[in-house]
C-alpha cells in the first residue's frame, strides 16, 4: 500500500494541474450550455467530482481529456441532453466543400497568380457557425480544432470508436463549412448565386 503522505501529495499536484484547465473547461461548458450561469455550475461540479474521483485517474492518460469527460457526462446527466449525431444532416451535406463552392462562385482560377485568402471572405461568421452546430458536432470540432485532442483522446471522451470520431469530425467540418457559407452569403460578404 502506498503511504498516505505520498498519495496525498500526488493528488494535490494533480489538483493543481487540473486548476490550470479551468478556463478551457469553462469555454467548453459555455459552448454546451450557452449561458454563463449554467457553465459556471458545470465547471464547479466538474471540479468537485474530480476531487472525489481523483484516485481513479490513470496517471498515464491525459488529464485534460479526463476532465472533459467528467464535464461532458455531468452536462448530459444534468440537462438530459443526448449528444448523438442529428440524422437529417447526413443527407445532403456530406459532399459540401467550402473551398469548391467559393472557388466556383468567385470564378477562381486555380492556376492564377493570386492565392485564395480565406480571411478575406469570412470573418465573424466563424463564431456564429460554430454556435449553431448541433452539440454532437460542436463538441468534436471543439476537441479537435480548438483544444488539439488526438482522435484517440476524443474517442475516450465521447466513448465512441476512432472510426466514429473520424466520420463525425468529417461531417461536422462539412456542416460548419456549409453554415459559414450561408452566413457569409446572407451578410453579403460573398456574392452568392
Amino acid at each position, binding site marked *: 500500500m502506498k503511504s*498516505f503522505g505520498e498519495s*496525498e501529495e500526488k*493528488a*494535490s499536484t494533480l*489538483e493543481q494541474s487540473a*486548476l490550470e484547465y*479551468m*478556463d478551457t473547461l*469553462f*469555454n467548453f461548458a*459555455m459552448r454546451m450550455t450557452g449561458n*454563463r450561469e449554467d*457553465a*459556471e455550475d458545470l*465547471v*464547479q461540479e466538474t*471540479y*468537485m467530482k474530480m*476531487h472525489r474521483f481523483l484516485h481513479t485517474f490513470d496517471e498515464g492518460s491525459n488529464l485534460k481529456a479526463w476532465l472533459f469527460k467528467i464535464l461532458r457526462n455531468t452536462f448530459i446527466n444534468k440537462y438530459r441532453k443526448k449528444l448523438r449525431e442529428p440524422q437529417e444532416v447526413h443527407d445532403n451535406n456530406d459532399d459540401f466543400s*467550402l*473551398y469548391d463552392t467559393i472557388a466556383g462562385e468567385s470564378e477562381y482560377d*486555380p*492556376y492564377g497568380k493570386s*492565392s*485564395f485568402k*480565406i*480571411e478575406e471572405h*469570412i*470573418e*465573424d461568421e*466563424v*463564431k456564429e457557425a*460554430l454556435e449553431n452546430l448541433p452539440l454532437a458536432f460542436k463538441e468534436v*470540432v471543439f476537441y*479537435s*480544432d*480548438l483544444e488539439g485532442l*488526438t*482522435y484517440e483522446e476524443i474517442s475516450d471522451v465521447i466513448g465512441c470508436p476512432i472510426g466514429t470520431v*473520424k466520420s463525425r*469530425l*468529417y461531417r461536422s*467540418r462539412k456542416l*460548419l*463549412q456549409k453554415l459559414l457559407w450561408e452566413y457569409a452569403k446572407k451578410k453579403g460578404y460573398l456574392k452568392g448565386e
Partner: protein
Amino acid sequence: MTCNDAKEMLYEYLDNEIDRDSYLQIKGHIDRCRKCCDKFEFEQSLKKLIKDRSQKFTISQTVRGDIVKALSDMRKARESDTKREKEQTNEDKSSRVIQLFLKRPAYALAAAFIPFIVSGLAVYFAFFKPTPPSPIIREIAECHDQHVNGNAVLELASSDQNELLRHFNKFRNFNFAVAAPESNDHKTKLLGCKDCYLVGRKSVHVDLERKLNRKFSLEIIDGSGMNINHLNEELVDGRVYYFGRHKGYNVVLWREGDTVYSLTSEARKNELIHVAKEGIRMRRGMAPQTFFPVRE
C-alpha cells in the same frame, strides 16, 4: 497517389493523425498538384481560423476563487479525517491489547517478564558471553582429554618417585630446564609421564591422580618468550595464576622462570590452584646420584 486519395486523407493529414509514410506520400502529391495544394492550404487556414476566431470565454474571478477554496477546504478536511482515522485505529489496537490482558491475567504476567528476560539476555551477552578459549587452553584441554579417555600412551607408567626422577633426567636432553614433580601430600599420586609438544613447544606431560580416582594432567612447557598474559588471571598468595576453560575442563597455569606449568582437570579452579600449591612440588637440579645404578 491521385487527387481523390489525397482528398480522402485530407483531415487526418491536417489533424496529424497519419503515419510517416502516408504523410510523405500526401506531401509529395501536394507539392506536385497545384489544385490539391490550394485546397489543403485552404482547409488548413480554415482550421486555424476556427481556432483563432472562435470566442474565448473566461470564468469569472469569483467563481474561480470559490472553486479553488472549495478544493483546498475539501483537501484539508480529508487530510484531518484520515489523520483522525489513523489515530482511531491506533487507539483501537491498544484498547484491544488491554482487553486481552484483562481477560487473561496470565498473559499480562508473562508480558511483564519480557523486559526482565530481554535485559537479562542483554547483560549476559554484553558481559558473560564465553569468549572462545585461547589456543594454549584448547591444546592443554585436548591433551588432558586424550589422557583421561585412554587415547594417549604414557612413555613411563609408574608411580615410583625414583623411576620418574630418572626418566626426567632423560628429558633434560630436551634442552630446557625440566624440574621433576613430586607428590607433596599423601592425597596426590603421580601415574607416569611422557614428552610431547604443546603449542609448538617442547613439554612434558605428567598424569596425576587425587582421591576418588580424579585424574589431573600436569604439563611442563618450555615457556621462554611465551606470552600467557592475555588469559584471565588471579593473584593467590602472591603468585599469579592464569586460567581458562575448554571442553568442560578447567585449566590453571602459572609460570616459574622460563617454564610454564599447567594443571588440568574437571575439578573447580580453586581446587586446581590448591593442588598446584600444596599437592605437588618441583625438584630442581639433577637427581641425586644414588638414584642412578652405581657403576663399579
